[in-house]
């Protein structure tokens, strides 16, 4: 059974053990920013250093997508929509 998290309201499938970043990239989601937020967020360094892939998490602190294992039902969105209506 495929698992999903939501990205800006849209479902994104992931495989067990995969990071949020890996799942987003496979889904073709490269720009992690809001349309008017330039430069948009993006996966860049892959090791949690650049903070370019930090994503907002509903009801929790933002995390680096490249470090964080995807979990079923996570509701994620672009920064700086922390606490905003990205859920």
């Amino acid at each position, binding site marked *: 059974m495929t698992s999903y998290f939501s990205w800006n309201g849209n479902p994104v499938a992931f495989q067990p053990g995969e990071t949020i970043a*890996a799942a987003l990239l496979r889904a073709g989601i*490269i720009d992690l920013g809001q349309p008017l937020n330039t430069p948009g967020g993006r996966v*860049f*360094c892959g090791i949690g250093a650049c*903070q370019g892939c930090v994503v907002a998490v509903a009801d*929790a602190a933002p995390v680096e997508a490249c470090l*964080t294992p995807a979990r079923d039902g996570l509701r994620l969105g672009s920064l700086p929509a922390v606490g905003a209506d990205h859920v």
Partner: protein
Amino acid sequence: MCEAPILVVGGGPAGASAAASLAEAGLPVLLIEQRDQLGGAIHRLPAPGNASHIWRPARHRRNWARLTARLQAAAGRIETHTQTVFLGVDGQDRFLLDDRSKGLVFTRRLRAAIIAVGAVETIRPFSGWELPGVMTAGGAQVLLKETGRPLEGPILIAGSGPLLPAIAAQLAKAGNPPVAVLERGRPWNAPGALARLALSWAPMSEAATYAATLARSRVPYRCGATVTQAEPDGDGLKVGIRIGEVQEFLHVRHLLIHDGIEPNRTGIPFPEPDADVPVLLAGDGREALGADAAILDGHRAAMQLLTRLGRANRAAASDERGLQRARDFQANLARALHSEPVVPAPETVICRCEGRIYADLATLAEDASAREIRLMGRFGLGACQGRFCGPMIAALRGQPLPVTTPPRWPLRPVSVAALARLTTDETE
């Protein structure tokens, strides 16, 4: 009362080697790792659900198997926390650790700390490097190791160093050979350094394997070639490249860049080997010498600490010899691939977090202090705390950018609720 542990931050080769060496000497170790598995970037393992393993050198596989076996044999004395990030040292000298799997920030009374957080990649800025679709070569390699699946669409690899042909060959073997590899340096102009490099068997045989793969997959490897700019183009990037005097444009989906590595020292405490709670650095986070040297350096740091704690009295001469060999290799590599810095175009983003461009940097006084660069220029004030723009500014100004003191924490995003629930051990 339990014996206070030695904190080891980072579960890559240096941290794993240090943790195993300390535990083998009978000391309790608290090993923390930001990912869900140990290994670091170099030994990043396939995600649990992924059966497709990418090709990697046998030497690295053997090294990690040995380290893993040592950790397992000493597991009784090593308390490992994965998905746990080092937030920094607070005003009361407490090492703050965020176990994200539990939403718990905790600290411990420590006997000492060894910090082995590895390296960050350096890049040379060009107009457009900040765009989505541009990724570091190392970041793409970590992703490939985990997923076994290459990025989709046309990929261009550019910058400098041995990682470029390595990731290119791995992408080719995984089914998506890059359109080209652009090496900034002109190694044929430094035959002396090349000849000395040729004496290092392990990296040279690895390089030969990569070269053969690139030749088979018909991936062009061009020296003296650079990316000059990138701009959004449909769902990809239009990338300007210069090979010698010729300027061309390529349309790609992903642009992977890399110009070497340097120790990840942003926000990391200063080494204080003689303090009451000694702090030592190990591995690429101390001196960027690569994965093989990191294992030696983790052992070296552990021995230094054991000596300081009166538990050993030998500095391992073999470690020092190995580290010196790695240092010589890196120096020859740097000579072979040397290229002069290029002044970026005025609109080139330097500090991505704060959107500051080269023109902003150029308005600052030539002798501006680190404080002025930060507070007036707003460079390095953002979320990454200067991990990327710091080295760029240093290279452009020709002098290191002094680090802020004391290091600012938290180094990583952390929930205020988790911070407020900070747990300390009751012995404090």
